[in-house]
């Protein structure tokens, strides 16, 4: 068996066998699912009931409807309400609608509380109900507008379709933005997480002094590349596990809760219609109408997902991740070889982190103009291109530009591997000496 394969095997297995690897592998999908599920759970299963007092001097807001979470109590005047607010376990807030000094409709309405401010969902519930009552009572009754006309007007919405004139394809740019942002951030994090694993591995071998035993059996270059490849495989394994785990957990979760979601959505719509003063019989008829804009949005998202070339993006992601990782991890290996503690390697690590960090900071700008000159330049410079090109790919990049960028990157990798191997070879056998940039330059010029 080839020696480099033995090194790859060891690097891979020791890392994959670690508890921390599995904790991280399980934790990320769980967090992801939690981010997705907790808000839904809270929205559907909130057990807290808030009691709200309503004092309406105008008579315009005479139709607050209680729900599972919020119960409204009409009170005759503000003094009674204030007394109720002072007592424990009665009402937590007062909606006070004062008679306006002039006109019919009050413009300032106060919500009082004594202990805790009402939660955002309670506030928005109050706001929504008041808007609806205002419409029903003032627009419809005071100004005598026909209810059917009103419904037609408010239910009319506009869908903006941005299309390529030549191909007739839709733009789906918001979808592309999300993909660009997530994937470029993922490459950025992966390069540094796994790059610093390589660096720590090299430092471990150096400070353990096992490296001298190892290099009497194989070439330093084999040792370095074995480690780089082994850690890359660990990274790819983790990616695959993350995707498979989060995918299956989310699918399982969605299927198990499909009923809950549907009910929640229906209930929301019924509440909305009821609050507009629509009778139960009318609701059934209205349901399909109100569904319309919502489903349109959803189908467009699905169309967008189908339309964007995921194959191309996935291949680009893999290539850019692997090349970016190779570029940086070999340099991280060299840094690990010339330092013996985390403290004294910052002068070498810092310059390595700057280029990619710069791209991440510039990502919003690049997304605005994915084919602008800044984006093109950054996606050609090898130290920024793995992330910068990933930002551009979802928006469509000419093939020749991808080819040139990947070509430059590959050539640079050959150069950095050569430089890193040279530094690594000398550095790993040098103990207790602080190394400067001047020293490194000497190593590169002379063959040691």
């Amino acid at each position, binding site marked *: 068996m080839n020696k480099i394969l033995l090194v790859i095997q060891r690097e891979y297995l020791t890392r994959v066998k670690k508890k921390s690897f599995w904790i991280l592998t399980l934790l990320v999908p769980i967090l992801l699912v939690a981010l997705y599920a907790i808000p839904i759970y809270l929205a559907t299963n909130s057990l807290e009931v808030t009691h709200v007092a309503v004092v309406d001097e105008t008579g315009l807001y005479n139709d607050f409807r209680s729900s599972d979470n919020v119960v409204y109590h009409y009170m005759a005047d503000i003094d009674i309400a204030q007394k109720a607010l002072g007592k424990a376990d009665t009402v937590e807030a007062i909606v006070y609608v004062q008679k306006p000094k002039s006109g019919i409709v009050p413009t300032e309405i106060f919500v009082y509380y004594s202990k805790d401010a009402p939660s955002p969902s309670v506030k928005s519930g109050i706001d929504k109900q008041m808007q609806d009552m205002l419409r029903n009572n003032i627009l419809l009754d005071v100004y005598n507008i026909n209810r059917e006309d009103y419904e037609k007007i408010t239910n009319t919405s506009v869908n903006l379709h941005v299309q390529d004139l030549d191909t007739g394809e839709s733009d789906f740019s918001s979808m592309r933005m999300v993909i660009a942002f997530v994937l470029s951030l993922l490459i950025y994090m992966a390069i540094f997480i796994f790059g610093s694993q390589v660096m720590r591995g090299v430092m471990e071998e150096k400070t353990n002094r096992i490296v001298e*035993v190892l290099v009497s059996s*194989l070439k330093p270059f084999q040792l370095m590349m074995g480690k780089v490849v082994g850690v890359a495989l660990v990274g790819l394994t983790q990616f695959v596990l993350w995707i498979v785990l989060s995918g299956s957990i989310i699918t399982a979760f969605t299927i198990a809760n499909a009923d809950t979601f549907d009910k929640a959505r229906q209930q929301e719509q019924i509440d909305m219609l009821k609050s507009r003063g629509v009778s139960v019989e009318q609701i059934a008829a209205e349901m399909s109408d109100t569904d319309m804009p919502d489903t349109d949005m959803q189908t467009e998202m699905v169309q967008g997902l189908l339309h964007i070339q995921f194959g191309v993006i996935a291949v680009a992601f893999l290539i850019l991740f692997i090349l970016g990782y190779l570029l940086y991890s070999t340099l991280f290996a060299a840094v690990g070889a010339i330092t013996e503690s985390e403290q004294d390697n910052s002068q070498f690590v810092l310059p390595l982190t700057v280029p990619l960090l710069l791209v991440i900071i510039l990502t919003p700008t690049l997304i605005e103009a994915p084919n602008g000159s800044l984006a093109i330049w950054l996606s050609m410079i090898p130290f920024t291109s793995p992330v910068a090109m990933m930002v551009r790919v979802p928006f469509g990049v000419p093939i020749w530009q991808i080819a040139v960028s990947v070509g430059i990157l590959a050539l640079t990798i050959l150069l950095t591997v050569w430089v890193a191997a040279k530094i690594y070879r000398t550095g790993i056998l040098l103990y207790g000496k602080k190394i400067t940039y001047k020293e490194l330059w000497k190593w590169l010029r*002379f063959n040691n």
Partner: protein
Amino acid sequence: MELLATENVEKSYSGYKALDDVSISAREGTVLGLLGPNGAGKTTLIRIINQITAPDSGCVLFGGERLSQKHISQIGYLPEERGLYKKMKVGEQAMYLARLKGLTKYDAEKRLRQWFERFEIQDWWNKKVEELSKGMQQKVQFIVTVLHEPRLLIFDEPFSGFDPINANLLKEEILRLKNNGATVVFSTHNMASVEEICDDIVLINKSRVVLSGRVNNIKNSFRKNIFDVRCRKTDGEIAFAYGISVLSQTADELNTFLKLKIDNTLSPNDLLRSLVDRVEVLSFQEVLPSMNEIFIETVTSNNQSQTAENKEDI
């Protein structure tokens, strides 16, 4: 027959010469002591033999062939700066290092089990290295060094970190390996162990070989014509003929001890004759210099002559 030879090896690091025209040879089945003060260039030479670094000029021969990658599996190296992966299990780690030396999985495991049995450490197999004491780790390291049954073994300061019992065990193992036909290159500062183990020595000082040869011959060539004599107790000073000087004279209740030095013109027999006339000789023995004395004398005089040369240059 020489197993290992270096011929006119030179090596410089940016501006500093680590090895200058170094030629050494190790006879097959013997122990060669590689001696020298710190910074003399021993480690550089050992690294060149292990192909960790390459010489600038000169060559290294292994069994008559030019040293190449294929010889790696025939060399075992225990470096001075040594260690193991702390988090890895002992057995797993030993397997890994053995397979890097070219052993198959099957052979590596079989031999490791045998060695673990020999050292009675079978229950260490599944322990992590960090759970072992330093001395225990050294044992594991020793096993890994010799496991692939190399023809050439290189030990760099092997006794550092060993307690006396383990150091003795190690010494016996080295001699056993030698008796089984292995050639050993042995670098150390411990001169007592050199006398016990080494057949030949090479002394390197300031990048150059300053002394080399068989231990017995070297000792012989460094003898100073000094003799220890024990005789029946006599009172007062003993006067000797011309050419014999008394270096010291001590006595206890029964014996008088003399340390005598003779001129080059005289032989030990002349001294003995002269003694017999004067005292009743009980024992008579030539004093040979210890390796320690030879080391210090050679290095000091070499340094002095170099300083003198440098002064002349200026």
